[in-house]
């Protein structure tokens, strides 16, 4: 998205936001519950947005949860 249609978009969003949503109305959908999806969800939630976080597995954590430690500090991955 370049800047010109970026500002047009903001305008569309502004209009759309005037209409209240139903119970399944959120702000952002995050696809993937690994470290990146979790961080994005946390940031958006603390910035005041309602987030849906979905993952295809039975728990969040992603690949990082499978790691024993992380470089270069050898901190625990959990």
């Amino acid at each position, binding site marked *: 998205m370049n800047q010109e249609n970026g500002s047009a978009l903001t305008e569309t969003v502004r209009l759309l936001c005037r209409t209240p949503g139903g119970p399944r109305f959120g702000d952002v959908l995050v696809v993937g519950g690994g470290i990146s999806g979790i961080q994005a969800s946390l940031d958006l939630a603390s910035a005041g947005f309602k987030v849906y976080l979905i993952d295809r597995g039975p728990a969040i954590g992603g690949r990082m949860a499978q790691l024993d*430690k992380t470089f270069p500090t050898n901190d625990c991955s959990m």
Partner: protein
Amino acid sequence: MDRVAGEAGDFTVTLLRKPRYVLEEKCTGCTTCVEYCPALCPDAFNQGLSQSKAIHIHYAQAIPLIAYIDDSCLYLKERKCRICEAVCKNRAIDFRQKPETLAVNVGAVILAPGFEPYDPRESGRYGYGRLANVVTSMDFERLMCATGPTEGEIRRPSDGRPPRRIAWVQCVGSRRVTPGENRYCSAVCCTYTQKQVILTKDHDPEAACTIFHNDVRSFGKDFERFCERAARLPDVRFIRSYVSIVGETAGSNVVVRYATASEGVREEEFDLVVLSVGMKPPAEAARLAERFGIALDPSGFCRVDPAHPLQTSRPGVFVSGAFAGPMDIPESVFAASGAGARCGELLSRRRGRLARERVFPPEKDVAAEEPRVGVFVCHCGANIGRVVDVPATVEYARGLPHVVYAQEQLFSCATNCAKEITAIAREKGLNRLVVAACSPRTLEPLFRDTLREAGLNPYFFEMANIREHCSWVHSLEKDAATRKARDIVRMSVARASRLEPLKEFTLPVHKAALVLGGGVAGMTCALSIAAQGHLVHLVERGEDLGGLARRLHTSLDGMDIPARVRDLAERVYANPRIRVYTRARVVSAEGYIGNFLTRIASDRGESEIRHGATVIATGADLYRPAEYRYGQDGRVLTLLELEEAIARGEERVLGAGRTVMIQCVGCRNAERTYCSRICCSAAVKNARRLKELNPAMDVCILYRDMMTYGFREEAYREAAERGVRFIRFEPERPPRVEAVAEGGASVLRVVVDDPVLGRTLAMDAGVLALAAAVVPAADAPEIAGLFKVALGPDGFFKEAHVKLRPVEFATDGVFLCGQAHYPKHLPETIKQAYGAAGRVAALLANDTVVASGAVCEVLERRCIGCGSCIAACTYGAIRISETKAGPKAAVNPVLCKGDGLCNAKCPTGAIVLKHFTDEELASQIDAAADAAASETLNRKAG
């Protein structure tokens, strides 16, 4: 994820929820069902190295910590069994569950599906799947892990013996043109292998570790030192060679063939071979692309424009993490914050309408009660439990004074255990809690919330660190470690009994940001914060915006850098929410999160700026070489000067018969133990450009390890194919440059020892370009001092946590991005700048922030007004004020960081650091010093 309709601001996404066959609200995660389930299946979380059951919990610390039933269930397959239903006391099993379709309406989407580890079976070359003792690096992670199939004892699959001779094979599935493998570099494998080597040696100091590698790409922050640490360990060999897996011996050892310059082709036997597998696009990439209507790049990752690295080809759909290409955890984390910022820009008007606050029960007043301490001792999987006798420690804790309850837990940090702590605290009327587990640095906030949930003041909590301080450092002395764990617990209980309730402060947030540095990082960050609805003050020390990028012309990924920088600057100047200060200097900085006050001297004169957040994006400088005749001979340039000369079309450069480039000038040496990350790509970029403009030119790059990680690998390969010569040198024998008089002319001669050919090469260069290191900006120490943030060992700004807090400082409210953090490529800088903007917006979106209650307080009666505390405080938190009883010190609790320096200086003991009072600490020390006394007390209490 099934269907996507709509447009940015108004997407309707249809989701398909697979049945768990377990009712989430009823399951307690007790795992009784798992015990009784008769259907075994390979445990995917453990890479199939161990067996799991059809009903199981994904992993020990899983969130949510509830069971689920997978396809191997006998009932789901053959309508038999249903044992789990019978044994579940909570009636949480529900086989009637059906896949559920639900539609959600959202304004924006972030795609973060991650990556798939490369499966070596795809090439069939490595014996993986055929030879028992060939494993992938992901398998090896599980083999090392306390929660893995071998409970943290490294054992090889064939016979369960601990392997003594272990080989790592690098670039499996990466940097290869062979069918079934990938051409790009996966960027993380070199360093994770070094980590695995270091951890292997921790597990078994006798293990002999061999790494068969190509270039060692230690291009990230602190990687070079980490690599040296691995290489210095005894019995660790780094061998630069391609390998082939020959087969296995009768004893299932793996035979590896390799070649070195000195010894030729050799075969060697290893007990275990670890394949350092790279990253592939996630399995569902193609489906996601189709459903969302987004473009993928030829290797199957999400296609991004290097100038807009967080957005997909569809407006309103953003990308973060390794779906956009191989990257490490810090980059995934700041890309996530950055993608959040991009959503915030789009949706800033609806912020706060749908969110809800977490509500805690009211706090009970327990000040008058006798201490009733509860102790929870964590196994941390096997991290603690393998070394420390946890049940014995619990038993010991039960006998300590004031302890009314003690128990063990597998993972105290898991959701169910935290809930258990809350429930028990209520049930047993506990008013002080001790969790004996890991370092308070990461998890203390979590447990404090646990207390809040129980209606207790969060400061009635003490963490006994029996992992970092005990089980990890005494892994070979189990008895002694258990004794030490008891000592630590006894000390913590003593302190916990004396803890006092403290109040935290709520501070208003001034909704403006100060961004220091007007380069690409600063401008990108400022624009994003402004687009999210906040005022920004952008402060640049130079005359104009643009920073170092103004000197760049092209990039490997085809970004038109001058146009990009111009566009950013124009948008910054045009933005009504951004105020630009050029030729600016920070005169003074005071304040704290939410309420900073900074004085700036600039073209606008002196300005006093109030702001709630600070971003340091002050960039980096370039090293001025003192070697290779730079500055003495006009033909010797830096790479950046070469780039500028090419852009100007200088004939002496374009017409040169030969251009030689020398890499790693001024870094990766004793003085600067880091890699400047960007220079190898810059060399390839300029070499390619020179070959384009003058195909007859001989271009040689003298390098140590080519750091063209990720998709830059393709450009490296292409340059080699176009005839650019890459000649490696050993750091012990760097190239020599001399000016030789020949036939009346001065010839610039470069001499280098080629370790591959085993010969010394001499070449005469028309132009010599030096890859000068990226060094910390000269004013970094001054800025660090002003804003009370730290610098790392290399002089770059030091983030709060290398992995999980890569764009913020330990000092609250101060953030960083760009080359001030570490050298990086422009797309990485842009991502990090958005990342910082996302974190800033998350702060400024709130009207208030909460500050710690563990701060200093003056007992006026004892204060003699001498002022030594003021000199000791680095935060300017103490002032002398006149009182009726004379001058007395007073602490501003909001500025105080609770470091306690003033306490130590005060001659009359008039300053108290709350939560670390003399009484609390002395009780801890007494408990440490006098085990016997404690035992006596213990008996009395009993």
